């Protein structure tokens, strides 16, 4: 994200904190697509991702007067989305697995899903099976292109803990996919 965008976000947030609704709408239009995509990649479910994105943007409005620009707005918003996703994952753990059905493919359209090769499909399913924090660390690193320090800030943990999450996540993926992918190559 450009510094000018961040400065503009800060200016908009200052207006939102004073109850300026048009500023809030502008901020929402700017960040909603990215946050919706992130929630979809973490949750692997389009409907849940929409709920999370909506809830996150509402929290921006309600918490704006309390917000202090200690971090970039984007980082703060990403943290809200990630926390909401992790909460939802935690709650989903109590759902009967048989009733929950198959894991939904996070790809948004059928055409794009058809283009994915077999390995990518397997990897997507394997990522969906990872523990929530490992999965979140992997999505933030590989999809959002964040550094370990940024991921640590969002997950409210240390850089070494993020490194551990990534190592364990990749170990789990290798255990599950290793044979299949090695055969293909």
């Amino acid at each position, binding site marked *: 994200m450009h510094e000018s965008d961040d400065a503009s976000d800060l200016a908009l947030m200052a207006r939102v904190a004073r109850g300026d609704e048009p500023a809030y709408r502008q901020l929402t239009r700017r960040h*909603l*697509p990215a946050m*919706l995509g992130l929630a*979809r990649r973490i949750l692997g479910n389009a409907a849940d991702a929409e709920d999370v994105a909506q809830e996150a943007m509402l929290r921006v409005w*309600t918490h704006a007067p309390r917000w202090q620009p200690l971090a970039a707005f984007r980082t703060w918003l990403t943290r809200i989305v990630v926390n909401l996703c992790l909460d939802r994952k935690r709650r989903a753990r109590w759902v009967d697995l048989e009733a929950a059905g198959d894991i939904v493919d996070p790809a948004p*359209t059928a055409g794009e899903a058809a283009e994915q090769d077999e390995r990518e499909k397997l990897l997507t399913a394997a990522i969906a099976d990872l523990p929530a924090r490992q999965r979140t660390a*992997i999505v933030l690193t590989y999809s959002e292109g964040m550094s370990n320090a940024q991921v640590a800030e969002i997950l409210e943990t240390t850089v070494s803990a993020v490194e551990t999450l990534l190592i364990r996540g990749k170990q789990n*993926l290798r255990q599950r996919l290793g044979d299949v992918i090695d055969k293909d*190559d």
Partner: protein
Amino acid sequence: MTEDRLDKLLHKTLKREEPAPADVDRVLKRLAGRLPRQRFALWRLPNVLLDWQFAPAWPRVAALACCAALGFFIGIAGVDRHLSRSGYIAGGGGLGTIVFEPDPLTGARP
């Protein structure tokens, strides 16, 4: 599987894709309704007071000066004395003029 191959595959599989505009519009529509009340923190109150502008606003200063001048001229001209004289109550002999006169005791009973 080597580390590099897994990294490449992860980058490829998790490549950042923006959601479809229709999906974004659907969420925007859900947010288009009336927004909830914002939450204000009590610890922000001292900041509000510190940010308060105490510099005088000139229209208010002019209004205050006009009121002060009007009061001064009313006092000089004695308009208030004329008003108080016209409403003067006659027969004011002080507290001594107030007599407590109870009913006479006749011994008769009703």
